[in-house]
């Protein structure tokens, strides 16, 4: 069991050396600050919770950024070791492949959590500095934090699957970018196209909501965009969110990391270095 922590410790060191920690933190911090400042501008004194506005704009961005960071942290994990030739030696040490995988996951998850935490703390800090802490509700921020981690964990797992399946970093990086593009852009476009074609039939009412929530990125979006803030922008999406419900969204977000890590472990077990 201790081996997991030894692996995590080493991977954290490598992530720090490779500037992954710095890159992720700077990226999240920069976008959180910009969106908090820009998002606050138009609300003025309309009575909308300014933190809620910031959370909504950060959610929109996190849907793109967090899967990207997750995939970039993970695509090299197994393929990189296989390519460098360090995998065979690691596998002769007395620890299981599951322990190696979980150790790497813990390290990458820690990097991601740290980056998200820094970004959201900056958002909270800036909002408090501007409007005072009095009327702010911090629940949405906490919800955003927790669901961001689940979203990140899901895509870390997906990255490990790719990494274990292709075993070449070049190919793995191409595939994860494609997966990212599909999950955060093409999937929604496809659903939108189907909606238009269906014109409000059974697909729209009973299949579409579940297809939407099956994508962890969309489940994340649905959870964090409360009905009142998005009603003007995307009434269709929030209506669809109503069908699957919070339970459906949470299930999707929590099952994805577990499923992806399990699949990655199965793929990793098949490797003969």
């Amino acid at each position: 069991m201790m081996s997991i922590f030894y692996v995590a410790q080493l991977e954290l060191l490598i992530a720090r050396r490779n500037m992954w920690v710095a890159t992720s933190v700077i990226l999240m911090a920069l976008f959180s600050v910009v969106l908090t400042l820009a998002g606050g501008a138009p609300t003025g004194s309309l009575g909308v919770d300014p933190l809620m506005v910031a959370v909504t704009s950060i959610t929109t961005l996190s849907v793109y950024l967090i899967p990207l960071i997750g995939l970039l942290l993970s695509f090299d994990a197994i393929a990189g070791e296989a390519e460098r030739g360090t995998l065979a030696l690691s596998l002769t040490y007395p620890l299981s492949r599951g322990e190696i995988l979980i150790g790497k996951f813990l390290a990458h998850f820690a990097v991601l959590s740290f980056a998200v935490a820094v970004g959201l703390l900056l958002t909270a800090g800036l909002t408090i500095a501007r409007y005072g802490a009095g009327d702010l509700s911090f629940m949405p921020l906490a919800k955003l934090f927790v669901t961001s981690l689940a979203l990140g964990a899901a895509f870390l797992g997906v990255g490990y699957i790719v990494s274990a399946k292709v075993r070449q970093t070049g190919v793995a990086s191409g595939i994860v970018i494609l997966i990212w593009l599909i999950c955060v852009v093409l999937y929604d476009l496809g659903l939108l196209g189907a909606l238009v074609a269906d014109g409000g039939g059974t697909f729209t009412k009973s299949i579409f909501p579940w297809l939407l929530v099956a994508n962890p990125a969309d489940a994340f979006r649905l959870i964090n965009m409360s009905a009142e803030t998005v009603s003007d922008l995307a009434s269709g999406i929030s209506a669809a969110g109503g069908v699957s419900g919070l339970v459906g969204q949470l299930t999707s977000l929590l099952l994805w990391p577990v499923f992806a890590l399990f699949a990655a472990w199965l793929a990793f077990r098949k490797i003969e270095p």
Partner: protein
Amino acid sequence: MTTLQINNVGKRYGPLETVCGVNLTVAPGERIALLGHNGAGKTTLMRMILGLTPVSSGSIRVLGSAPGSRSARGSIGFLPESVAFHGALSGREQLRHFARLKSASMNAVDDLLDRVGLTDAADRKIRTYSKGMRQRIGLAQALLGKPKLALLDEPTSGLDPILRHEFYDIVQELADGGAAVLLSSHALTELETRTDRIAIMSKGKLVANDALVNLREQASLPIRVNVTTMQKDVDRVAAQLGGARMNGCSFSLTCRQDDKIATLGKVTALGEVIKDIDVNPASLEELYRHYSGTNQGGE
């Protein structure tokens, strides 16, 4: 208990049989050299001992455990053929990580760094290391946690002559401490005095497995006697003894083992004409070619 027990092991990749019916046992304190061309099956055999790839037939036992089991892996030290590490780590960091996995002490890391002569470079990133330095880190990690069985695949590649010498001293220490050592090498000359037994693989089969003296006897390859005379005498003496000229003042004779003393007697009987005699039994290279059934010499 034998440290390593290999019973009739075979490995098949589809129609290709890379290892076939290999029997080999290694006892504690024994040093065995595994020889063979590239593709003879040495590395595959090692990978099966490590449990990195399953055996297709037969069985392997490492200290009584199945290969790849936690207890087997815990008692093996392995140096892969072209050892690699993450370049962003320093030698010390990498070794400390391996030491933790093997439950070895952190003091052992410093001692081993010292033993392989890397103390000064220990805190530099591995990406700045030369091939020889990476090889030494590889050797150090194989020695962590006092392995009961050391599997060393081409351990001396990239090492200069002095380090090679050092390396065999380390192997000697390991064996003296009761570890079994199985090493593969292409540098045949250095193995002659440094191993207890030679195992030769050819096309997946174990074609020889014995002490060097016994292998010499079985092969009964001719002994070469180099004789040096004065320049003016060389042609006459060579003709008289039936030797072949080598250079301006020496020629060589070949004879069988049981004929050696008689031949030497004939040479020394010529008295002062002879300046020097050099007796060379069949070299490991020649034995290796003999047993692997080819005169190509391999790599």
